[in-house]
């Protein structure tokens, strides 16, 4: 069948978002459909590719579990999910009502518990649930709102009615992806977006910021932090993106400390008092005093500080209880209890197994139901019973019967379907819409939009649980164009906050980011030089070739390598490539590159978009290397390294050009300078020191210069040919040469003095002392002495001991920097102080 004209037809028995049952396009889809059809499949596909590239460049990814390596680019379908404003107002009202009700429930459960004592809900619904945190009893935020931020998942059934299938009340995820989806779609479909009059999202985030500012109780420029579990989590892209968009420092538990009844951020400039915590971690990870699940994590004493008003946590700890899916069954009664009226929108039909009659129903209809655990702490996922084999069904039923209060059953309702671009066709996919509400004024502001998840295929019932499916930008059509708003209000216009708080953890990452970037670059350049020498028309003498290869092992510390007794000096290609590409080998280039990615992940919020794009190039560069190594082994393998070296150089350049000269930046620079100095010393010691041959080590000067990117300069400065003394002058002493040792040490001195600040104390710090010692030794050294060789052995003994001493001082300086600036606190440990009742 021909794919033109580009059309969409219903391929399922559910409600279709675009087409009416009679096959006609729904009114609010007329214009978008026309535009899509006019574009045609080829143009759309091209834009889909562009979108994918932008997402990749933005680093929009999610990582399943803790595997950073398996980072999937976020999947965005170009065809938006579109809702008319009439339809939307139903959903908007329902989301607002839901948030209001959950807010009342939250205040009640940790307060008077009228829901229980008036028998609106059975006591066991709450008392038996591990998410009911008794330590939070009696806690209350100022004002009407306990629940600050809420998300609900919705589906539309066959009749076209929307219903709520679940709530997220602790740290609802997805808003970062909503923003990214919108940003990308606006870029690749600008005219469609503009002409369709789509509601803008900024106002929602403005409300969010306003609420958090208000929670600080009118304090002038309050410190609001965005608390996450840290890098390498499923949503670490979203956290960095959203924290950046909202303008809050991204912190982890270990960046915070409880002191003097308050919560403090361990920032680069010392402790800073935190006013509000935007909590993006679950209850159980917030405070090890409260939850036995948070061993080694969390901020001890956080709950007590919050209880006594020392800090505001939004959403408050304890809000996890609202996620109990069994509430769905009691929502109508709860609405009557609190509001005196019926619900505006139903939840999916739900049976709570703790209820005798419900349990009987669940037993009778077990195979047709979706079984969910009442607490996410249990780790159990939702299970469609009819996807299980007989034995698994019996096992599940047994678990439910043994602990009925902990389970609910939901009716399985196939969601509505909507078209996605699949190749050159439009195919139907089931969808779940996640809507968001944030507390504002006397009620809630609902985001005009949301995160639409679509299934990976037409029949799947696993939609939200597997990000693998895809997502859509969600458009709510406005009747007329809206004005633009900025999410930053006048509070910001008073002047930039120069002391924008960075957690001190960051500098550790930046330091190592600098070190590894340099290590990877210098290692790659050395290996490239070695390949060039191996295939040169003027081959090196065998002993020099041997020494050059050994220097690769020494410089990269990939022992035993070429230092091994049985090293294959005559055909070293395999080993050289292994040094480059073997991820599992400590010291290999691939190992360094992976370390770059790791440290970059920890400082994402500090890096510009261009930097992030280069980081992605590093990732791609690794894949490229792996894919082409085998075939390239035969001819000119050194060419393989060029793109990566260029990327790393660009990264170095950008860090100079696009980062503010803050304290943070200095740590990155120091990492780089220290690494370059140490690598240079290492290379010189293992190539130019030892004599032993007639030609002398000077024959290695050319590759050494090449590897240190100083060969061209050398040739221009000294037309006389390769002489050790001249080479050392350029590589050690020349302050104009950005590759020289003198240049590195001088830069380090400047950074350390700046970090030490203007208060010149009588004693310099240990870090600066070590550095100055090395710097002075270099300043006072006599070049002819260093270049002189021992008459008998031909070895540069002076040079060797000189370099060795420098190496020792630099190592000490690096250690002193780490001791002085980096955060060494391990996680908190819980101790039972012999309180055991023993008698």
């Amino acid at each position, binding site marked *: 069948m021909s794919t033109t004209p580009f059309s969409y037809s219903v391929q399922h028995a559910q409600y279709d978002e675009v087409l009416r049952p009679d096959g006609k396009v729904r009114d609010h889809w007329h214009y978008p459909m026309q535009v899509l059809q006019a574009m045609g499949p080829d143009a759309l596909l091209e834009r889909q590719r562009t979108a994918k590239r932008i997402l990749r460049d933005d680093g929009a990814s999610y990582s399943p579990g803790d595997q950073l390596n398996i980072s999937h680019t976020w999947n965005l379908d170009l065809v938006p999910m579109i809702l008319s404003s009439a339809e939307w107002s139903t959903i908007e009202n329902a989301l607002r009502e839901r948030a209001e009700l959950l807010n009342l429930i939250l205040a009640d459960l940790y307060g008077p518990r009228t829901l229980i004592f008036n028998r609106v809900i059975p006591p066991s619904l709450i008392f038996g649930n591990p998410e009911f945190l008794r330590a939070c009893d009696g806690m209350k935020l100022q004002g009407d709102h306990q629940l600050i931020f809420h998300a609900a998942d919705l589906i539309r059934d066959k009749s076209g009615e929307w219903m709520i299938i679940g709530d997220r009340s602790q740290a609802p995820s997805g808003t970062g992806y909503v923003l990214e989806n919108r940003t990308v779609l606006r870029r690749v479909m600008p005219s469609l977006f503009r002409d369709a009059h789509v509601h803008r999202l900024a106002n929602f985030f403005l409300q969010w910021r306003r609420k958090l500012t208000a929670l600080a109780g009118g304090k002038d420029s309050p410190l609001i932090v965005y608390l996450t579990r840290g890098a390498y989590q499923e949503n670490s892209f979203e956290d960095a993106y959203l924290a950046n968009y909202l303008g809050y420092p991204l912190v982890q538990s270990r960046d915070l400390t409880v002191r003097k009844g308050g919560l403090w951020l361990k920032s680069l400039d010392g402790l800073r008092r935190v006013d509000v915590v935007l909590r993006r971690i679950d209850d159980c990870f917030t405070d090890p005093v409260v939850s036995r699940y948070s061993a080694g994590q969390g901020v001890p004493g956080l709950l007590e500080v919050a209880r006594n008003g020392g800090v505001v946590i939004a959403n408050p700890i304890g809000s996890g209880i609202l996620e109990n899916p069994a509430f769905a069954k009691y929502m109508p009664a709860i609405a009557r209890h609190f509001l005196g009226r019926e619900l505006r929108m139903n939840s999916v039909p739900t049976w709570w197994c703790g209820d005798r009659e419900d349990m009987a129903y669940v037993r009778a209809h077990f195979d047709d139901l979706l079984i969910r655990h009442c607490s996410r702490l249990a780790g159990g996922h939702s299970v469609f019973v009819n996807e299980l084999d007989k034995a698994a069904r019996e096992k599940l039923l047994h678990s439910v019967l043994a*602990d009925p209060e902990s389970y609910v059953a939901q009716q399985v309702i196939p969601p509505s379907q909507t078209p996605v671009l699949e190749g050159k066709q439009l195919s139907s996919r089931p969808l779940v819409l996640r809507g968001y509400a944030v507390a504002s004024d006397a009620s809630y502001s609902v985001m005009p939009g949301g995160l639409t998840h679509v299934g990976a295929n037409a029949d799947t019932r696993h939609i939200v649980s597997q990000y693998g499916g895809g997502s859509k930008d969600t458009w709510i059509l406005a009747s007329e164009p809206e004005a633009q708003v900025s999410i930053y209000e006048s509070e910001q216009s008073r002047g930039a906050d120069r002391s924008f708080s960075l957690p001190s953890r960051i500098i550790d990452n930046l330091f190592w980011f600098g070190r590894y970037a340099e290590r990877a670059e210098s290692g790659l350049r050395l290996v490239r030089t070695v390949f060039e020498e191996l295939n040169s028309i003027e081959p090196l003498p065998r002993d020099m070739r041997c020494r050059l290869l050994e220097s690769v092992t020494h410089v990269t510390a990939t022992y035993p390598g070429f230092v091994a007794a049985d090293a294959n000096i005559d055909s070293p290609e395999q080993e050289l490539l292994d040094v480059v590409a073997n991820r599992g080998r400590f010291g290999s280039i691939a190992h360094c590159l992976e370390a770059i990615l790791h440290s970059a992940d920890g400082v994402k919020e500090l890096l510009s978009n261009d930097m992030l794009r280069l980081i992605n190039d590093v990732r791609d560069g690794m894949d490229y290397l792996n894919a082409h190594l085998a075939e390239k082994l035969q001819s000119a393998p050194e060419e393989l390294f060029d793109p990566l070296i260029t990327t790393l150089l660009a990264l170095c350049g950008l860090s100079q050009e696009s980062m503010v000269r803050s304290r943070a930046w200095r740590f990155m620079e120091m990492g780089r300078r220290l690494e370059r100095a140490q690598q240079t010393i290492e290379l010189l010691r293992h190539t130019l020191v030892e004599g032993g041959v007639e030609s002398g080590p000077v024959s290695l000067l050319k590759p050494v210069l090449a590897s240190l990117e100083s060969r061209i300069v050398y040739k221009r400065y000294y037309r006389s040919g390769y002489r050790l003394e001249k080479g050392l002058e350029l590589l050690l002493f020349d302050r104009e040469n950005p590759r020289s040792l003198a240049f590195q040490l001088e830069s380090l001195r400047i950074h350390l003095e700046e970090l030490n600040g203007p208060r010149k104390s009588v004693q310099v710090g240990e870090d600066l002392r070590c550095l100055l010692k090395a710097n002075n030794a270099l300043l006072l050294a006599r070049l002819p002495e260093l270049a002189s060789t021992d008459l008998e052995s031909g070895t540069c003994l002076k040079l060797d001991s000189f370099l060795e001493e420098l190496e020792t001082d630099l190592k000490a300086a690096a250690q002193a920097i780490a001791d002085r600036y980096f955060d060494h606190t391990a996680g908190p*440990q819980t101790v039972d102080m*012999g*309180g055991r009742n*023993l008698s």
Partner: protein
Amino acid sequence: MRYRISHTTVYEYSDQVSQGYSVAYLVPRDTPEQKVLRSELKVSPLPATQLKQFDYFGNTVCSFSVEKPHKKLEVRVDSEVEVAPSENRLLGSGMTCADVRQAIAGCATAADIQASEFCFSSPMIGRSNDLADFASALFSDEREFVTAVNELNNRIFEEFQYDPGFTTVATPLDEVLLNKRGVCQDFAHFAIGVLRSLGFAARYVSGYLETLPPPGQQKLKGADASHAWFAVYVPGDDWYDFDPTNGAMPSGQHITTAWGRDYSDVTPLKGVVFGGGADQILSVAVDVERVNEGSAQGQIQTQTQIQNPSQG
């Protein structure tokens, strides 16, 4: 009876602790049978913050934060408590086990609702069929409930061996059931587990026991250490305390500190520290002395006991 209790915990770390936050259930609470005349908690080194609050269950909970580096922490609590000698309550309400089960499931009164909290699995006590089977015969429908609980209490006292070296704070209940050994905390948890598995409400009580032996009787176990027992709820009536370690119902010699669903709700002293190293040395000293009213020297008996943490 009036008691003076002093409870001192010294914690020595192998490595410096940069900061430590602790929560203590060491200050006794008021109960219908007991009035706390005074109670004071002292910490060394001096904490940066120290708070005394009521928790969810109405217990007094103290928390404190030591924010300067230290290698040794000392917590001392001195209390004076008046305990009313209770009458023999075994004659009870006459409610049968079926009545109790039905009343608890029905939650007819606010008190019933509150008590129903103690029917579920809690962090350290999971309900199970094995636990129910242990005593289901004792709790048949027509039996008088309090009598049945008393028999359960006696059975544990007779069948289980007191063995402080056998269990740790983390020993699960099924292991206690299997080996029938443990300390007061294990026996209390076990009894609670059995009762909850049978549909009753039972709570964990943490406190002290006076060690003075009545004339002609054997000295009670649990001399001058913290102690634990359990209580069951009789709908429309009250909570009844039982001490399975001694096979008795407390009558004037048990001093209640706190109650909760299990040990984890009322751990006498727990802390979260940064640093501290892997090894810690702990010593606990508890004195319970009866104060003789009217007598100038109120002291009858003092006994100090140092516990070795390897047993705990």
